[in-house]
């Protein structure tokens, strides 16, 4: 099965970089296609079209304990009938759109892994400690997922 792992985030906005860090760490250990993205708009489709399976790693903010790891489906994050915010497309909208426009090329399976963040307001390249601790755990999860 052709799989891609995509990390989304801002590399210098502390915990927002967690998705990117997971992908960087993973690609040091495992030979798998990876991509890093800084937005959740159409570029997500540019990366995942043509793959059988996509694993997308992003930061999430729900108010739970920082470092908490969530495995989500598109519907889990597709929480609103207002598909866009005022500035950008959400990840869920982009993915749904992908299935409407490119049904034959979209991955049959998309797994979303989200990590609860603490600080996405201050600039810095390091994640906060609890979020940093989640990184190797997520890397292991993805390795298991790939070897399935």
């Amino acid at each position, binding site marked *: 099965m052709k799989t891609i792992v995509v990390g*989304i985030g*801002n*590399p*210098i*906005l502390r915990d*927002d970089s967690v998705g990117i860090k997971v992908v960087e760490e993973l690609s040091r250990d495992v030979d798998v296609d990876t*991509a*890093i*993205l*800084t*937005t*959740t*708009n*159409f*570029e997500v*489709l*540019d990366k995942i079209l043509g793959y059988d399976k996509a694993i997308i790693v*992003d*930061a*999430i*903010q729900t108010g739970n304990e920082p470092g908490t790891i969530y495995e989500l489906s598109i519907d889990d*994050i597709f*929480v*609103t*009938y*207002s*598909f*866009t*915010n*005022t*500035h*950008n*497309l*959400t*990840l*869920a*909208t982009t993915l*749904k*759109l992908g299935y*409407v*426009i*490119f049904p034959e090329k979209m991955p049959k399976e998309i797994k979303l892994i*989200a990590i609860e*963040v603490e600080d*996405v*307001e*201050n*600039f*810095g390249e390091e994640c906060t400690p609890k979020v940093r601790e989640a990184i190797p755990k997520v890397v292991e999860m993805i390795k298991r997922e790939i070897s399935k």
Partner: protein
Amino acid sequence: MSGLKKIEINPITRLEGHGKIAIFLDESGNVAEAFFQVVELRGYERFLVGMPIEEVPRTVSTICGVCRAIHHTAATKASDQIYGVEPTETAKKIRELFVNAHYVEDHAVILYALGLPDFVVGPEADPAERNIVGLVKKVGVDVAKEVLRKRSYAVKILEMLGGKPIHPVAGLPGGWSKRVTEEERQEIEKLAKELVELGKLTIQIFEDVILKNEKYMELITSDAYRSVLNYMGTIDEKGRVNYYDGVQKIIDTKGNEIGRFTGKEYLNYIAERVLPWSYLKMPYLKQIGWKGIVDGDGTSLYSVGPLARLNVADGMNTPLAQEAYEKMFDVLKERPIHYVMAYHWARAIELLNAAERVLELAQDPEITSPDVRAELGEVTGEGVGIIEAPRGTLIHHYKTDEKGIVTEANLIVATTHNKGPITLAIRKAAKHFIKNGQVDEKILNYVEMAFRPYDLCLACATHVLPGRLPIEINIYDSDGNLYKTLRNF
């Protein structure tokens, strides 16, 4: 504010920046005041202090995932000045090509994902339909496929030129680190032809859907969405719109030139007013002096972005865009155009213009010259890079020590310039659509439609899931009791 009803449009979380709209009603339920507040991400400028200036372009490309190519190029231009160097002609052309490819990509996303659904699907359509998926249903999957496929070619060009897939790294003081090979040039030329088709298609959709629909034209030319302002934008030596380089020109509400500047002369024209209710400073024109958040002749507020650029310029630098530009001024029958909704039209024209320019530059024999970097001069200690970001004029101003280490950084982004006009647009729409205390779900979209043309970028550096801007309108009676809540989530 006693005796006034208060409506608040509140984001519930702090994701995607902190925008907050507060609307106050008077005793009879009409809008007395409306405010737009923003909390920006802070500390970015501090983050750059202590960094060698040649590192800055690579770092600032991470400020905003959307505008990475633009911040990269603005900082690169500032670094030219700090090293006292004029980039080679080829380097300038590569940078311009890079910026124009970014315009095609970004304008396409904004128009198709955010601007057009309001019109194509209809402003009063159920929010479940009034979005890009609704748009796709209306224009057809095949058209949508074409649009998405073609815009991905612009991303391909950006990646080819930027030197690294996501965050561009190729900009250097005095030039560009990567030359364009003949093979790449041919590839870009091929892709650019498709981009021009995308531009033509976009203008076509705009004309078919909006210009031919009387109701939408009424909406565009409605007083609810008209703000009489001054405008600022960048022009080339022939007075035409230019995104990469030129002179910044400011016109008044009647189109008379107020002045033009380059580099740090911006400080002679732009002043900032600190407002007690806001976290942001509101820029205004120094020559006119602060007149408050008002429009009309004599206002000191100015706006930037697609419509501002077209208003300021005498024309476009490519033939098809020039035709479309003339048509817009003919149809709307005023100059400058003060209809805020025309921002979307101007954005469509600029998309076509940028695509044509990408093609022209890809066909320029000089683009493949190996002469992509000039010798550095002495460190001057100060540099200002000004560029037109898709959302408007972007200013990067740096001071360094004698080794080129940044000691001070000041970044003025488009949304900051537009803060006054955005507040004004919200206020006008609220006054127009809220009468006698009548507020329903549709109001929320009509108010959002007022600021969507400016495509405000509050803090697009963060996009953490769920990545949306939940909005809540709370309506309070004159005793301060909540009696109605409207939500978009």
